[in-house]
């Protein structure tokens, strides 16, 4: 056995790239038993990739493995699968629970690790015929729960538990595993109420006292200060700084998290922008909007969008920014009041929005944005055909598809957006991500909307396509005066294309600032402390 170093876990100059675009550059991290390490960073800073590497997820192995070394208690390890990581004593609690609602807490904690009693039949039919030792299961579960230091009724069915207790059940499951040494918590407090978050932080303290190290991934910087002894701030795939929790402050962390020198050419007023007139009259006003979109809950959004404006909506993942367009366009149940162009828009009614001139490019390209099994022609012209009866020719009193007009328009947009495809008849599923996104844009442009929602247009597409998509959005806004609302988790892109940026945190608008304001201020908004002047 190599010399026993006092570090429980050391990750030395870890690097990772997904066929070409680098995601992690020379990341090093060392954790001692009982440490509580806060891992902070924007979306896309590389936090989740780092954890996937630590955990030996096969998504890493399938895309070419990783550079650098990982040492557990001094000796190097290379996990082929999550179960290897588990055996080495590393547990992980994901944001969406992996619990069985119909099972009691005890049964969930010991899922597939239940202590068993041998019986005659299991001699013949194999181990799976052993009966479960209920008393022993309860004892082990209570042991884990007391180790966590929370009150949790171990015999209650998880389905009828409050969210906080579900979280505790999942954590107790991880720490009930035999030689648990390190626990990774991924955004645990995102779904918890205040009181429950307090109880969780105290339980993390109990864990570190019991010698279990915790990596605590969160964007609520206040919680980092309360419970962590070390903070690692990551940005653009690099560890920007390692701070001692005691001696740092929320503003310093936010600045490190988001702060980049502002790029020179950002939002320079080029000559085309003069054409566009941004009136001071709101074209769209949203009052008390709530949207039930799983993972992107919107609680109470009030927002006004000016006519002809290019508004950006930012904020961290899971805070509800993507819920807003999905709610308004009726894809998810929503409530509240939305007036557009002076007219009240009934919610939960996609047709009404589309006919009154709203359009939406969904973030879920393959799920909602495209007809994968149909040709590009269909994808581009379908919405316009159904809403504005375009591309139809009347024979007798029946409206048939006008294939010539469809082909002409599709080819126009293929050429205008430089979509790489064999022909307009090619199936959408055969295109690359970037080209699929261009087709979704073309579909919206064909509708000639008065207001265009664009959600995460640049997610998961190559650099070339990214630039072209943003460029065509900006040109469309300038030339046809259509108001565009772009929702993106890439702060830089918002700042380079939008006039104003609203930041959404915890399902509500935490502030609206002009694009030119410093990224630190945006960082502060993102982590949830509201700017003094309450957003109108």
């Amino acid at each position, binding site marked *: 056995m190599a010399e026993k170093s006092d570090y429980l876990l050391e990750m030395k100059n870890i690097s990772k790239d997904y066929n070409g675009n680098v995601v992690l550059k020379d990341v090093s991290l060392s954790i001692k038993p009982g440490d509580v390490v806060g891992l902070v960073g924007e979306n896309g800073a590389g936090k989740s990739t780092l954890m996937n590497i630590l955990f030996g997820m096969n998504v890493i192995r399938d895309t070419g493995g990783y550079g650098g070394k990982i040492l557990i208690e001094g000796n190097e390890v290379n996990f082929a699968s999550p179960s290897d990581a588990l055996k080495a004593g590393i547990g992980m609690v994901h944001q969406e629970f992996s619990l069985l609602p119909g099972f009691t807490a005890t049964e969930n904690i010991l899922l597939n690790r239940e202590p068993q009693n041998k019986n005659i039949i299991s001699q013949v039919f194999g181990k799976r015929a052993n009966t479960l030792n209920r008393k022993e299961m309860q004892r082990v579960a209570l042991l884990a729960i007391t180790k966590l230091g929370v009150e949790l009724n171990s015999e209650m069915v998880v389905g009828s538990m409050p969210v906080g207790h579900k979280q505790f059940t999942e954590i107790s499951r991880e720490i009930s595993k035999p030689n648990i040494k390190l626990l990774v918590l991924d955004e645990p407090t995102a779904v918890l109420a205040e009181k429950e978050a307090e109880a969780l932080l105290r339980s993390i303290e109990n864990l570190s006292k019991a010698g279990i190290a915790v990596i605590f991934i969160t964007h609520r910087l206040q919680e980092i200060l309360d419970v962590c002894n070390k903070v690692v701030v990551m940005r653009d795939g690099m560890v920007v700084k390692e701070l001692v929790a005691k001696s740092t402050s929320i503003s310093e962390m936010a600045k490190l998290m988001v702060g980049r020198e502002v790029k020179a050419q950002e939002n320079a007023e080029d000559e085309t922008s003069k054409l566009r007139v941004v009136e001071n009259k709101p074209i769209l006003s949203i009052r008390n909007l709530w949207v039930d979109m799983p993972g992107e809950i919107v609680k109470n959004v009030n927002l006004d969008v000016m006519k002809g404006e290019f508004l950006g909506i930012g904020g961290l993942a899971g805070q509800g920014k993507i819920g807003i367009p999905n709610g308004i*366009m*009726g*894809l998810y149940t929503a409530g509240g009041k939305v007036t557009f162009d002076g007219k009240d828009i009934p919610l939960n009614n*996609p*047709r009404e*929005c*589309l*006919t009154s001139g709203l359009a*939406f490019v*969904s973030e*879920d390209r393959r*799920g*909602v*944005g*495209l*007809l*994968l*099994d*149909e040709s590009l022609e*269909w994808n581009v012209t*379908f*919405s316009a*055909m*159904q*809403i504005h*009866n375009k591309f*139809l020719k009347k024979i007798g009193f*029946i*409206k*048939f*598809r006008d294939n010539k007009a469809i082909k002409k328009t599709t080819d126009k947009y293929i050429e205008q957006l430089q979509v*790489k*495809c*064999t022909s307009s008849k090619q199936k959408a599923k055969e295109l*690359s*991500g*970037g080209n699929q996104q261009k087709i979704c844009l073309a579909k919206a442009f064909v509708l000639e909307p008065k207001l265009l929602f664009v959600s995460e247009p640049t997610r998961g*597409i*190559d650099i*070339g396509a990214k630039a072209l998509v943003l460029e065509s959005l900006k040109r469309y806004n300038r030339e046809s005066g259509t108001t565009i609302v772009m929702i993106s988790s890439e702060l830089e892109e918002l700042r380079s294309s939008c006039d104003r940026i609203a930041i959404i945190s915890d399902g509500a608008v935490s502030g609206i600032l002009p694009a030119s304001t410093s990224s630190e201020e945006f960082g502060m908004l993102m982590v949830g402390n509201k700017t003094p002047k309450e957003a109108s």
Partner: protein
Amino acid sequence: MTNELELQQTPQKKGSAFLERIKSGVKAFGLPRLIITGFLVLLFLIAPAAHVNIGTAITDVINRFGMNAIMVLAMVPMIHSGCGLNFGLPLGIIAGLLGATLSIQTNIPGGASFWLAILYATPFSVIFGWAYGKLLNKVKGSEMMIATYVGFSAVSFMCMMWLLLPFKNPTMIWGYGGSGLRTTISTQGYYYHYLNDFLALDFSKWVSPASVGDGAFIGAMKNFFSHLVIPTGMILFFAVFAFIIWAFLKTKMGTAMTAVGSNSQFAMASGINIDRTRTISVIMSTWLGAVGILVYEQSFGFIQLYNAPFYMAMPAVSAILIGGASVNKATITNVIIGTILYQGIVTMTPSVMNGLVHTDMSEVIRIIISNGMIIYALTRKTEASR
């Protein structure tokens, strides 16, 4: 991602391109369908050895094709709109039976009774289809199981109704009691062979069977044609309906229906009223089922009531699957190829089997092939309706 595109454009070598096309052709055609086609061709080849006259065999296949084609066509609208395979076809068939019995009740002889039957059947199929569609919209995702049992419940309910409904026409009711319909009612005198005989090409009138003096080839030809009768009326009738459905899929409503079946999220985001489109597709399917059974009866010669429609959905479902349709994609060509293959096997196996081996295994083979085909389709990875 971008390099993937360059690969497509580079010109491939002549030989492998040809092989490529065959391979993709085979894949598109589907292995099981290839086996079934091979089986059918084999049957036709050994037919003479089993002294089965090819002429009568072809006539039989065409006749059976005409009889069942519209019911297989009835599958297309619901598959297109994502409601899955219409195991609830008996509902449409019941509407057709009601139409037929009412038209015989009004006792207008000849061809007019056929159109009258369709007229009577239409309101029933719209009402049944609407209620059935509403129900399926409530259970999105597990339509097929519930459709099967809606079909069975409807058929067993109608068994009671056939007893109670006040029909008076003597040709239909039981001799003694006078109440309740007979299990099979003959369409003689009404629309029996009304479509079949319309412009029928009855070669047997023009060509006499092979006489002694003819050579081998001429003799074979004579034998072939002398037994050949083509029911053009029925084929034309199907062609009209096939054209209507083909054209419908080109309309605005038809495109919307295809989108709903292909990706219902996409359709919802484009403002399509999903439930209304699905209900319309169910109504169309039920109506086609009604017309289909009427066409079937005019050629078969009998209206079968009570438990007869219980399993009528299975042949239509397996036919369209043999034709190459999947649980969420079906075209008119699938209907035509599928019906020919299915009916081909159903007609050829008994005659050839008896000729060769004097046992009638055809029933067993039909069950295995048709249900095997349905299982093959259900176990394909299509995430569409379940």
